[in-house]
C-alpha cells in the first residue's frame, strides 16, 4: 500500500506536468469540442505560443547557471523598435535584423560581465539594465509606436505561412531544436548545468565559470531581441512596451518547465511544455469568454503552484 503510494507520487512527479497539460486540453475539448479541439485551433496555438517560447529559451539558459535576467522584456521592446525604425528608414532587411541582434549581444555582455566579474546579484543588475533599456527605447522612439511606412517585407516574417503552418511556428520549432541540442549535446550545455549545480565545484573542475555565465546572458539577450523583432514583424508595428508582458510569462514557463525535469532544473523541453500550458490556458479561457482579470488570476495561481511543485520535487530528491 505504502509502496503504491510512493509509486504514484513518483509518477506524478515525473509526468505531473505533462498530465496537467493533457488535463487542460481534455477539459477545454470537452467544453468546446467544436472550436477548441480542431486542427486549425491547435495550429493557431502553436503560433500564439511561438513568441513566448522563443524568449523563454533564453531565460532557460540563464536560469540553468542559477541566474536571472530581468531585462528580457525591455530588451524585446528595444529590439522591435530598433528593427522597425531601421526598416522605416529604408535599410536593407538583413541589416534591420542583424544590427539589433548585435546591440542585444552587447547588452547581454554587459549584464553577464557585471554579474560574473563582480559577483553582483543578477536580479538587481538586470533590473537596473531593464530601466536603462526602457530609457533607450524612449530616446529612440520618443515614446510613440512605430507603425507608419513599415515595408511589407518586414512584416512577412511574422505573418507568412507555409501551407497551413505559420512561419512563426516553424521558427519556434527550429529554435527549440537548436537550444535542446545546445543544452543536451554540447560541452557548453553540460558546463551550464555544472555551474548551476555548484559554482565552486565547477570552478575547481577547471570550468571557466565567468566565461560561460557571460555566454548565457548574451544568449538570453539575443533571444529577447529576436522575440521583440518577431513581435514587431507580426503586428506590423513596434510598441515601446511590446515586450513587457513577456517577461513574467517567460520565467513562469521556465519554472513550470523545471517541474517536468527529474532534478527540477531548467530544461528546454520543459520550457516548451510550460509555455504550451500557459498558451493553451489563455486560448481556452478566451474561448470561454473568461474576462481578462480572471485569466490573470488563474495564470498567476498556476505560476505560484509550479514554483511550489518545483521545490517539493527537489526536497524529495534530497
Amino acid at each position, binding site marked *: 500500500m505504502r509502496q503504491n503510494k510512493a509509486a504514484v507520487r513518483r509518477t506524478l512527479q515525473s509526468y505531473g506536468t505533462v498530465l496537467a497539460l493533457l488535463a487542460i486540453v481534455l477539459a477545454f475539448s470537452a467544453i468546446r469540442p467544436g472550436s477548441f479541439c480542431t486542427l486549425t485551433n491547435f495550429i493557431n496555438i502553436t503560433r500564439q505560443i511561438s513568441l513566448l517560447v522563443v524568449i523563454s529559451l533564453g531565460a532557460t539558459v540563464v536560469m540553468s547557471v542559477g541566474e536571472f535576467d530581468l531585462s528580457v522584456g525591455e530588451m524585446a521592446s528595444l529590439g522591435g523598435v530598433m528593427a522597425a525604425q531601421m526598416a522605416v528608414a529604408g535599410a536593407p532587411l538583413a541589416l534591420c535584423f542583424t544590427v539589433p541582434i548585435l546591440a542585444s549581444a552587447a547588452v547581454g555582455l554587459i549584464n553577464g560581465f557585471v554579474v560574473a566579474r563582480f559577483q553582483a546579484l543578477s536580479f538587481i543588475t538586470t533590473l537596473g539594465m531593464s530601466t536603462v533599456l526602457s530609457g533607450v527605447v524612449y530616446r529612440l522612439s520618443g515614446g510613440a509606436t512605430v507603425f507608419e511606412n513599415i515595408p511589407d517585407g518586414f512584416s512577412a516574417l511574422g505573418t507568412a505561412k507555409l501551407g497551413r503552418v505559420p512561419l512563426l511556428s516553424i521558427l519556434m520549432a527550429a529554435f527549440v531544436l537548436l537550444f535542446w541540442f545546445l543544452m543536451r549535446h554540447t560541452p557548453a550545455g553540460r558546463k551550464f548545468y555544472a555551474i548551476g*549545480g555548484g559554482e*565552486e*565545484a565547477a570552478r575547481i573542475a577547471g570550468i571557466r565559470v565567468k566565461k560561460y555565465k557571460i555566454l548565457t546572458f548574451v544568449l538570453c539577450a539575443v533571444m529577447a531581441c529576436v522575440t521583440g523583432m518577431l513581435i514587431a514583424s507580426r503586428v506590423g508595428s513596434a510598441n515601446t512596451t511590446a515586450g513587457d508582458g513577456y517577461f513574467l510569462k517567460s520565467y513562469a514557463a521556465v519554472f513550470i518547465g523545471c517541474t517536468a525535469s527529474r532534478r527540477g532544473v531548467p530544461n528546454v523541453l520543459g520550457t516548451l511544455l510550460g509555455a504550451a500550458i500557459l498558451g493553451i490556458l489563455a486560448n481556452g479561457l478566451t474561448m470561454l469568454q473568461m474576462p481578462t482579470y480572471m485569466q490573470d488570476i488563474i495564470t498567476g495561481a498556476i505560476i505560484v503552484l509550479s514554483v511550489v511543485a518545483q521545490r517539493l520535487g527537489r526536497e524529495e*530528491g534530497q
Partner: protein
Amino acid sequence: MLLETRHISKSFGGVQALKDVNLGLEAGEVRGLVGENGAGKSTLIKLLTGVYHLREGTVLWDGKAVSLTSPAESQALGIHAIHQDRTLIPTFDGIENAYLGLDYPTRHGKIDWKAMAARVQSVTESLGLELDLRKTAAALPPPQRTCLEIVRARMRECRLLILDEPTAALTDREAERLFSVVQTLKKNGTAILYVTHRLDEIFRLTDRVTVLRNGAVVDTVETGSVDRDRLITLMTDSVPVRAASRRRTFGGVLLAARNVASRDGSVHCGELYARSGEILGLFGLGGSGRTELLECVYGCRPMSVGTVELNGAVQTKPTPASSLQNGMALICEDRRGKALIGDLDVRDNILLTSIDRFAVGGVLRRKAEDAAVRAQIDALQIKLADMRQRIAELSGGNQQKAVFARAMMTAPRVFLCDEPTQAVDVLTRNEIHRLLRLKADEGCAVVFVSSDLSELLEVADTVQVMRRGSAAQRLINENLTAQQVLSCCYET
C-alpha cells in the same frame, strides 16, 4: 565540582570519536585541552555545547545530572563556546551582536537602545576591554571580534567558557590582550576550557591539562609538572610507524612552488616541490595554511606573490583550467561542495573536468563518454546502481572514489590530494593509498595533505612541514616519528 562528565562516548557511523571520557572542572579553573587533529577535541566541545546530542554517559553540573540536547539548554546552564568559525552577524553592530539570542529591553513597547548600549558597555568595561561597539562586526579586526564574542558570552551568566583555538587569527600582541581577559574571567570564578595547538599558551595560561588521543583521555596533569616534550609524547601515539616500502630515488621535479603568498594572508611564504615518483606529505596543524597552499598552487585561491612551476611551465597566476591543462589534478574532500555537484549524476560528475575532450565538432560523444566513465568505475570498483544516479546517493567512500575517477580522466602527472581519505572507511582508505603509490611508481608526483599524522607517515616518502602559513622543515621519512614531525610544528 562545576562540571563533571562520566563515561561519555560518541560515535559517528561506526567511527568512535569519543571513548569513555571522564572530565572534571572546578569553577575558576583554566583547563587546557590538547590532542592531535582528530583526537576528539571538537566532538567533546560540541557535546558540551549541545550541538551534538549526548546519548552515552552522563554530565553533572553542580553535582546534578543534566541533559544536554540543544545549544539553548547548554547556554541556559551557562556554558558558552567561542569557535574558530565565528558566529557573529557581520552586518550587526557590537551592541546587537552582544544581545543576539537575548530579549531586547523595551520601554513603552519600544526597544530601549540606550539601556542596551549601557549594559553592553558595562560588561565590556568589566572585562577590561576597549571595543567600538557602534562598529559592525564586519568592520572589526579579527581579535576584536573574538573579544566581542567574549562580551556576548558574559552578557548571560557564563560559568564555563570554552575557547577553541582563540589565537589562531591573532597576532602576538592581540593574543596578549586575550590572555588578560582570560585572567579576569578566572578571577571572577568562570571556568575556562582552553583548546589549542599552541603549547606555549597552555603553559602560560592553564592550571591543568587534559590530553586526548584517539577519542580517549590519556591523562590529566598539573601543567607545572610536565614539560613540552612530555606533553607531545602524551599526545602522539607511541606505536612505531609501520615500515612500508618507500622510495628513495626520484626523477625530475614535476611541481615546484616558490615563495607563495595568498592574497587573504593565510599563506605567507609557502614552498614545496615534488619529484617524479615521490609522495610528498604536507603537514601542519590547523591554521598552518597547508590546504590553503595547495589551493594556491592549483589556482582556486588567489595568490599575491610567488611562482608555480608545473611540468616546466612557470606560472604566477595559475587557474584550475591551466593546472588541469598542464597535467595537475586536485582531489579534495567534499567540504562545502567543492569537489562534487550533488544534483548531477555520477557520470556527469566524473566527466566534469573533461567535458571538452569528448566533444567532436562541438558535439558530445555520449557513447565514448559512457565507455570512459565505465572504465574508471570498474577500475576503482565504485559501487553504484547506475552511472545515471545522483552522486549524492552514493556512500561517502564511493563519492571519494568518484572524485578520484574524475582526476584519472585527465591523466595527470601531478596529484594534489587534500584530505583524500577523510570520511572514508579503512578499506577504501587503503585502496586510495595503494592507488597513489601506483601512480607514483608510474612516474607521477603526489602531494598528500592529511591532518592525520600517522596516516601521513604511512604514505609519504618526504614530509614538508608548514607552520603559520610558511614552509618549515622538509623531512625525509626514514623512521620518522610523529613526535619529530610535531615538534617541527610547534615553534621553539
